[in-house]
């Protein structure tokens, strides 16, 4: 059980680091929002499941899973609201220069 939870947590950390690199490297708001949503979906899932496995069965595990479900409901809403505000205020998506 301990080893399984360590594997989950390390995989989650990998996705969190990739998302942070993406937030630095990608060129504009719209593509950065993809990196943030990568963290929110798979990174948070793997991290929180690993932590819940570490704690073992009980009320705490149930509470951590409730937080996870809450994250899955809330995050698409926030990302959509931000991207829609960016699009409506007239921002143009970045395009690769064709040379």
């Amino acid at each position, binding site marked *: 059980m*301990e080893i399984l939870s*360590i594997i989950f*947590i390390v995989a989650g*950390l990998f996705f*969190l*680091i990739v*998302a*942070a690199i993406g*937030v*630095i490297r990608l060129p504009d*708001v719209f593509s*950065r*929002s993809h990196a*943030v949503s990568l*963290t*929110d979906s798979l990174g*948070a899932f793997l*991290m*929180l499941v690993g*932590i819940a496995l*570490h*704690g073992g069965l009980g*009320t*705490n595990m149930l*509470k*951590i899973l*409730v*937080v996870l479900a*809450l*994250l899955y409901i*809330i*995050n698409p*809403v*926030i*990302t959509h*609201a*931000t991207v*829609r*505000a*960016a699009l*409506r*205020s*007239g*921002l143009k998506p970045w395009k690769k220069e064709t040379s």
Partner: protein
Amino acid sequence: MKIFLLYILVLLAILLGVYLYRVLQGPTIFDRVLGLNGISTKAIILLIVMGIYFERVDMFVDISTGYALLNLVGALAVAKYLERKGVP
């Protein structure tokens, strides 16, 4: 296991710094809002790992639930305001 959790905490704090760079640097205001959203997700994970580290998960999980709900309200309010106001 305890020392492993400590390393995770330090790594998460460094990742928070990366997002903070985006918040301070971001060319448009939407980059800053997006960075704050990423910071809040990371902070929720950080709080729960901290709860495991100090062996008080029952308390820290409640704090992180409240943080997630407050983050929803705040981010929606900011996005709605910027949509009405137009790009600054």
